[in-house]
């Protein structure tokens, strides 16, 4: 079977000692930063990206994937122990996870999150390996018109699934697209919006945007708030393993969460986030067994389901990236940036031109998940220590890592000025209630979108109807329109607002 042959090629690549080492290193670093409250996966990956510059492409991507999973796991630890979601997709984990910790059951909560995530991750990896080749076939049938429509669908999907104002999210995407156009136009050689600054003719560095908006912007916003009393459950983590009763309850929840997460993750947009919300809602709808703790008061299913869902979603969201070259969310947008830095153009051709990279990455995802379970459960004590580090030591360190990291991308101080500027812009966004994740997505897609629009219209001699007369393209646009209509329906609109302000 192809699947087995492909996977064994992948494991052959991933199981070399050097790649295992990078995978482990990535997981440790990712968890380390991800555990710290107030730093999400986007900021974590942006911060650690420069550490992979010197590596060969396969190892670099394997390490980045490790960082991503590590950051996700780390986020759930923070959610459970400190009542602070380290990232948006663990927002719902906080509800029941923290209550469990308060009742002295932090151990089982962490184990449920870890084991659930591991199972979901394994399933997600298998789905990824099975569905990537057929989807790649489809991708080769795509012309520029289809790609353009697909990106529209992806961007619409991203805002529909995001929280907050729809109009503002769309505006942020457009702003991202525009920022992505800064620099030399590939077709005419004209340096656009560069104000005669030589560094800007290469475009704005996406590391500078990501670190500025997500790193500096968040730090400033955090510091602006008065330090609230944080209760950290450090001494109370004992009895790590869930009881038999717990296992009985969480197993179906994990299965439901995994199925839901894997399906929603493939969709464009914030797969992992929506998956976590949806999984929690479903668990809440199912009947409580006699003697079971109600939701919101520390039900283990309320931890296991969303955590499995967001991990399965995180895994399957690699599918659009690896097969079509289109990032479905901000984290994947960073991965595109990372691939381009290593001279790999993401897209359907990766699988045929670099099979060892493609399958190696997939295999390493599974290895990474396994390593995280091994790392997280026994080493939980160490991560908890990290949680007790006061913020006054953390934020100068984060500022430093961002500054050194961004400098090392080009060894040019100009990038340091840029990260500062985007830090301020990020704070402005925060004050105005503008979600920054769509901006990053637009930024990565900007040049791709322009190129495909240009090609599509060149082929059709300027006839815009090409987007609706080609069946595939028309279908994608119809799906995008449908998504918008559904969200704007009053009934769904109210539900959506409800879902995102859950407790």
């Amino acid at each position, binding site marked *: 079977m192809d699947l087995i042959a492909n996977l064994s090629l992948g494991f052959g690549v991933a199981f070399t000692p050097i790649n295992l080492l990078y995978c482990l290193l990535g997981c440790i670093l990712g968890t380390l930063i991800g555990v710290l409250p107030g730093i999400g996966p986007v900021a974590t990956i942006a911060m650690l990206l*420069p*550490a992979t*510059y*010197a590596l060969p492409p396969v190892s670099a991507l394997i390490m980045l994937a490790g960082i991503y999973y590590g950051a996700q796991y780390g986020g759930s630890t923070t959610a459970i122990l400190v009542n602070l979601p380290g990232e948006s997709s663990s927002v719902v984990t906080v509800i029941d996870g923290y209550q469990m910790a308060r009742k002295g059951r932090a151990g089982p909560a962490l184990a449920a999150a870890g084991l659930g995530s591991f199972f979901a991750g394994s399933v997600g990896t298998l789905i990824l390996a099975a569905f990537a080749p057929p989807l790649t076939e489809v991708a080769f049938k795509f012309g520029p018109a289809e790609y353009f429509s697909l990106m529209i669908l992806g961007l619409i999907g991203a805002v529909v699934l995001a929280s907050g*104002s729809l*109009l*503002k999210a*769309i*505006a942020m995407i*457009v*702003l991202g697209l*525009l920022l992505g*156009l800064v620099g030399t*136009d590939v*077709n*005419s050689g*004209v340096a*656009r*919006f560069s104000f005669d600054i030589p560094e800007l003719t290469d475009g704005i560095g996406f590391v500078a945007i990501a670190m500025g908006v997500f790193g*500096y912007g968040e*730090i*400033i*916003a955090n*510091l*602006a708030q*008065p330090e609230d009393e944080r209760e950290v459950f450090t001494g109370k983590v004992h009895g790590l393993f869930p009881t038999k009763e717990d296992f009985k309850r969480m197993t179906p929840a994990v299965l439901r969460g995994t199925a839901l997460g894997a399906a929603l993750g493939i969709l464009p947009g914030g797969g992992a986030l929506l998956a976590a919300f949806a999984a929690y809602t479903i668990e809440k709808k199912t009947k409580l067994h006699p003697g079971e703790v109600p939701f919101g008061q520390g039900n283990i299913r309320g931890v296991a389901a969303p955590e499995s869902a967001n991990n399965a979603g995180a895994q399957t969201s690699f599918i659009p990236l690896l097969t079509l070259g289109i990032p479905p969310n901000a984290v994947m947008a960073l991965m595109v940036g990372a691939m381009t830095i290593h001279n790999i153009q993401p897209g359907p051709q990766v699988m045929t031109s670099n099979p060892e990279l493609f399958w190696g990455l997939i295999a390493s995802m599974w290895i990474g998940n396994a390593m995280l379970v091994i790392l997280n459960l026994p080493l939980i004590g160490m991560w908890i220590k990290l949680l007790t580090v006061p*913020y*006054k*030591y953390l*934020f*100068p360190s984060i*500022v*430093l890592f961002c*500054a*050194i990291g961004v*400098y*090392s991308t080009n*060894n*040019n*101080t100009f990038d*340091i*000025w840029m*990260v*500062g500027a985007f*830090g*301020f812009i990020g*704070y*402005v966004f925060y*004050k*105005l*209630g*503008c979600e920054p994740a769509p901006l990053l997505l637009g930024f990565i897609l900007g040049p791709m*979108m*322009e190129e495909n*629009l*240009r090609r599509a*219209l*060149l082929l059709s001699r*300027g006839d*815009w109807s090409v987007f609706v007369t080609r069946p595939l393209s028309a279908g994608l646009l119809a799906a995008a329109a449908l998504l918008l209509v559904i969200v704007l329906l009053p009934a769904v609109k109210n539900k959506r607002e409800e879902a995102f302000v859950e407790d």
Partner: protein
Amino acid sequence: MKIKSQKDFFSGLMFMGVGVAFAWGATNYTVGTGARMGPGYFPLMLGIVMAVIGMLITFFALTVETVDGAKIGKWAWKPVGYILGANFAFGVLLGGLPSVGIPAMGMIIAIYALVLISSLAGSEFDLKAVLVLATVLAIGSYVAFIWALKLQIQVWPTFITG
């Protein structure tokens, strides 16, 4: 006319302004036609779209009722100033500013400056603890970036290394 949502009102204005600026900037480049797009075509289109969305956001901010007026609240100038200042000082010390004749002082001094200045943004400032933190970070950065990752970063001031 009363602003119903301050956040939306001002973000609408921001999007309008930036949209118009991009669209206006795009007219400096060849716009071309759909079949032969010039470098100005796509940005002009996007700039107009953004300005229109900005207008809509502003309009809704004036008409749709919100519970608390969605106030923007006070701007935290202290953290903004110190964090961005620390970032700026780091850049200047690390790379120098040849245009005004400031020599590069290298990574170690830049780290001390960054940690000292950025720590002022917090609610408490304990000089001894900050110096310890800076020392730890300086050694850590040296080990991680220079020794392990072998990044090409100037470590010591130019007048010492020559």
